[in-house]
């Protein structure tokens, strides 16, 4: 999050932030991803687009260690992390804002944020907290409230903030705009732009709202039935709106 801070844990200096190779994953007997290969360069912001059920969430879960890959490889900053459980992936630098937000409903906003930094040293945690409250001033005004009592937009900000508290080098955002009022979506994306502008973090943004995502990301992948069927610079995909729409609608 801070420009010029030392490289990610175990970084070999040149490796991409993330290399996913021929990834297969699913739920029990159900196969959802059928050989996904993608690379995210350091400090790059990429989008993953796709229709309902295409496997976007499953892809993020496989990278975050929530779902164990059936085969394939996940390499984070040059370190093979395939099959590590979610808590280990968090400690390896993956910050996950899950689609269900997965907050601690009976705990305060303050404690939810503190839980994010449970594996971070106290000095750094204090810096991160300041940063998060800077990005989301609304959270600072409700630190004592229970997370379960927040509105959908506030919960999304808290999930975002909690992920930032883990001090990630790779941030995974799963449809942050879903079900939220336009003003809240705008606030979330302003915060995202601000983070991106500061550098120091790679981002994978999953969105069904392709127009919104393509304004923020540099490159995007289109996922369809568990396969990447299209990828390219955001500008090109944005120009080829018909093509994207065709895949997203399918």
């Amino acid at each position, binding site marked *: 999050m801070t420009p010029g801070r030392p490289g990610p844990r175990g970084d070999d200096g040149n490796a991409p932030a993330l290399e996913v190779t021929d990834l297969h994953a699913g739920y029990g007997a159900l196969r959802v991803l059928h050989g996904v290969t993608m690379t995210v360069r350091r400090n790059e912001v990429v989008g993953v687009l796709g229709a309902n059920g295409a496997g976007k969430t499953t892809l993020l879960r496989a990278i975050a260690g929530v779902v164990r890959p059936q085969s394939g490889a996940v390499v984070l900053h040059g370190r093979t992390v395939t099959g590590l459980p*979610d808590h280990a992936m968090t*400690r390896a630098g993956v910050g*996950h804002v899950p689609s269900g937000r*997965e907050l*601690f409903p009976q705990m305060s906003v303050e404690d939810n944020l503190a839980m994010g930094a449970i594996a971070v040293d106290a000095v750094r945690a204090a810096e991160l907290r300041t940063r998060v409250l800077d990005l989301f001033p609304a959270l600072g005004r409700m630190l004592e409230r229970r997370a379960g009592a927040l509105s959908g937009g506030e919960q999304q900000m808290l999930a975002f903030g909690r992920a930032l508290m883990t001090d990630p080098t790779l941030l995974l955002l799963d449809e942050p705009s879903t079900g939220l009022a336009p003003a809240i979506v705008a606030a979330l994306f302003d915060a995202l732009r601000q983070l991106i502008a500061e550098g120091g973090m790679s981002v994978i943004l999953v969105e069904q709202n392709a127009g919104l995502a393509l304004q923020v990301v540099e490159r995007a992948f289109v996922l369809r039935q568990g396969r990447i069927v299209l990828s390219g610079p955001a500008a090109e995909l944005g120009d080829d709106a018909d093509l994207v729409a065709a895949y997203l609608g399918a």
Partner: protein
Amino acid sequence: MTYLQVVLNGILLGGFYLLMAQGLNLVFGVMGIVNLAHGAFIVLGGLGVWSLHGAGVNPFLGLLVVTVAGAALGAVVQWAVIERIRGTAKQHELLTLMATFGLSYILINVGQQVWGSDFRTIPYLQSAVTVGPFRFSLSLLVGVALAAAITLGLAAWLTRTRSGKSLRAQAQNPLGAGACGINPRRLRLVGFSVGAAVAAAAGMLLVLTQPIAPQAATSFTIVAFVVIALGGLGNYKGAALGAVLVGVVQTVAGYQLGAVIQAAAPYLMLILVMLFRPEGLLSRKVS
């Protein structure tokens, strides 16, 4: 005895029941299962203090000893048995439940080998205390005060410390806990160990006020379960209400209807809760 005196005794009894239920609630929170060996931990704690007292050890020192021993036993059981079942089987929750049932059986039998089947109590702090119109046995008052202190300590641990908060986080949302980097395996070890330690401590307080024997373990498990079921499984505040309710209902039933109904009261309450408020008295239904 006046009626009010009976109700007050019931409330005090509720203090014990709350402590008995705390460990069970804690373990349920992190593991998602009811530990059926919970009552056995209580009994072993109580009889352990009884033996130490027989050897000349002050019961309060004995409390420390069995609490530490309970923590160690809990950690070993979790590490050697329960975590392994979890690692190997798909339907681990049902298997874990059955494993704790088997463990209860083993511990009760070991207890009977060591202590026999006689009910035992420690004649300690037997004098009566008069508060206004009411009379209480000193052991009951001291026991309740200790139970309250341990309950408050546990609450402070859960709400103020990093490890306690992690435990609540894990109980409230395991996926969220994973996203924070919380290692659930370590937390389950801590949770089960603390749960067993608190159970052993509750056993010490019980043996001061009533006779206990190894075969009573099952009924303690049931009482503790009724308390947390009344409060809503995993709900720490609800458990306090549940404990007082069970204590008062049981004492009043004993006074009015006799010992048989008194003993049956927790079971009857369990059936009523399951029929009418399976989600607990305090829980609001979530749409």
